[in-house]
């Protein structure tokens, strides 16, 4: 073992965690190397010095009893928390999906209802005449159109959109919503 290897394993030597072979090699190196003995002394002195300082600084400190009281009180509060309160929090979490779905359906139905109402109250020449049990459903959709054309030696592409509106009459049981 040389100085570099010994000093690399200095902490393990101090900890006594070297393998028996490495421990013997370290002892053998130390017996003939003043620099490594000095390094070992210095490291022990640092350990002793820091350990003493940390202990001297903190030995008189004690955890205030209030901490134990607070911990016990917090745990007791948690145990006393009404079961129904905990249950309700749990139920809300469990019901999140169904409630979300129900809200979406409600919004959809309300949207159709409002649209139907708006269609029924709309006036003017474009308004088609509706039979008594009919409703007008207006759908609009956008179609993207991607075109290519040749200009000289280049191919030029262009993206445009076309909006289509379709009016459909539906024999409406939906009118019951009115």
């Amino acid at each position, binding site marked *: 073992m040389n100085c570099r290897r010994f000093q690399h394993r200095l*902490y*393990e030597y101090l*900890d006594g*965690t070297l393998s028996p072979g490495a421990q013997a090699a370290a002892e053998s190196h130390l017996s003939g190397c003043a*620099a490594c003995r*000095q*390094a070992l*002394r*210095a490291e022990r*002195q*640092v*350990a002793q*010095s*820091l*350990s003493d*300082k*940390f*202990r*001297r*600084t*903190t*030995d*008189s*400190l*004690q*955890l*205030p009893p209030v*901490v*134990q009281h*607070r*911990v*016990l009180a*917090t*745990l*007791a509060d948690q*145990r006393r928390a009404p079961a129904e309160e905990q249950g309700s929090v749990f139920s809300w979490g469990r019901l999140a999906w169904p409630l979300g779905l129900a809200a979406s359906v409600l919004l959809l139905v309300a949207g159709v209802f409002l649209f139907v109402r708006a269609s029924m109250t709309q006036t003017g020449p474009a308004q088609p005449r509706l039979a008594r049990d009919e409703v007008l459903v207006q759908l609009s959709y956008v179609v993207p159109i991607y075109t290519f054309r040749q200009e000289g030696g280049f191919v030029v592409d262009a993206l445009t959109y076309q909006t289509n509106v379709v009016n459909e009459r539906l024999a409406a049981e939906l009118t019951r919503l009115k």
Partner: protein
Amino acid sequence: MDEEQLVQGLRSQDPRAVQEMVASHGDRLFRSACLLCGDQSEAQDLVQETLLQAVRSVPRFRGASTVYTWLHGILLNLTRHYHRDRKRLVYDEELARQEPAPAEEHPSRLDVEMTSGALADALDGLSGSHREVLILRFYEDMKIHEIAAHLGISSGTVKSRLHYAIAEMQRRLPSELNLFGPCGTEEKAMQ
């Protein structure tokens, strides 16, 4: 009450087990927390939260380490959050500051004696990761491989951090508290 009984008691949130945990480990945790964060009232809060988290998470404790080591792991995590929050707070205070900081900046700082003040100042100047290894090594008396396991880092990283932490402490401590003794700096320089 042995450790197994203590863990069983904590699982059922038995107040006697909580009292036993505080009696057995409270002071040691508190002292370690004081060294880690440098402020007694913050240390008190950190230990309180450590004990509460321990009771809440005890079903996940598998007994791979001692109860104290497990508690100390929780404390370390909480202390890291504390240091992150404090950095943010200092930054905000600096932005808002119009006047120099009042003299009583750390009212409950470790000022047991002069050594304590100097030590606390020197520790305060270290980064969190350097402070951790120093305290685990020289206060908790952990071996290198134990620190590595506790922090989830390699032994090489532990040794490297220790090396820099000791050098930084030596630089920051006043000469009368030299870590290497009266001619320590010279001895170190010779190496």
